[in-house]
């Protein structure tokens, strides 16, 4: 069962990478450091998807989150601060009450997730999912698929309208 041991090592490595860099995102003083830690969080989540046998989703996560959303957030950081301001600090407030609330939430969630006996249907060996996902999207989920495309179009036009300079 050395395969099993290897899986465990890989899982714990990426779990630590994900949660650790998420903690850096939340607690780092520097905005740029938060943004780059978010890169490792997204990467770790993509690796967890791959471990879960979701190959298409792992690739999608890399392309959209790392290539799209993260770059967008970095643009947001750059455009809303003066560039010569090297130490872009983000102020925090009400840290201790928030920490208490968050630890409470995490305690409750983790306790119930570990204690609940999930009626899991058993796992199946990982196989390529892309074709099956495409078929599901075109058959069972065609209406949400079209709605998502309309949503993207609306968001695109709306975002362009919001940032447009009023020239009149």
């Amino acid at each position: 069962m050395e395969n099993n041991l290897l899986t465990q090592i890989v899982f714990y490595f990426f779990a630590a990478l994900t949660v650790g860099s998420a903690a850096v995102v939340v607690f780092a003083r520097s905005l740029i450091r938060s943004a780059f830690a978010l890169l490792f969080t997204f990467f770790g989540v993509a690796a967890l998807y791959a471990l879960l046998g979701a190959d298409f989703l792992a690739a999608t996560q890399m392309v959209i989150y790392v290539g799209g959303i993260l770059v967008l957030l970095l643009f947001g950081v750059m455009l809303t601060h003066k560039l010569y301001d090297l130490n872009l600090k983000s102020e925090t407030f009400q840290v201790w009450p928030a920490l208490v609330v968050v630890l409470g939430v995490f305690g409750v969630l983790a306790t119930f997730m570990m204690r609940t006996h999930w009626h899991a249907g058993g796992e199946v060996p990982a196989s390529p999912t892309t074709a099956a996902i495409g078929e599901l999207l075109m058959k069972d989920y065609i209406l949400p698929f079209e709605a998502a495309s309309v949503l993207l179009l609306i968001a695109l036009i709306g975002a362009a309208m919001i940032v447009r300079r009023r020239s009149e």
Partner: protein
Amino acid sequence: MIGLGHYLVISAALFSLGIMGVLTRKNAVNVLMGVELILNSANINLVAFSKYSAGNLSGQIFAIFIIVVAAAEAAVALAIVLSMYRIIKTVNLDKADTLKG
């Protein structure tokens, strides 16, 4: 043996960290990063349940839709942050209190 519970606990940790970011940060872009963490934790949950329910792919489909909505949300939210910066010259959420009586 790695089971469903392990993934759910990671997802709970990401969710809690995301809430921490949303609650404590003053910078609007940083709050957005917290929201992205929360959406990612929901996605891990969906994919984990998808794997441990005999390979039912519905969870992955919903994860894809969440990614779509997250992309749209990030674009619109960044647009709002940018126009807020243009109007009040800061992205500190405490300063955005024009509507306050």
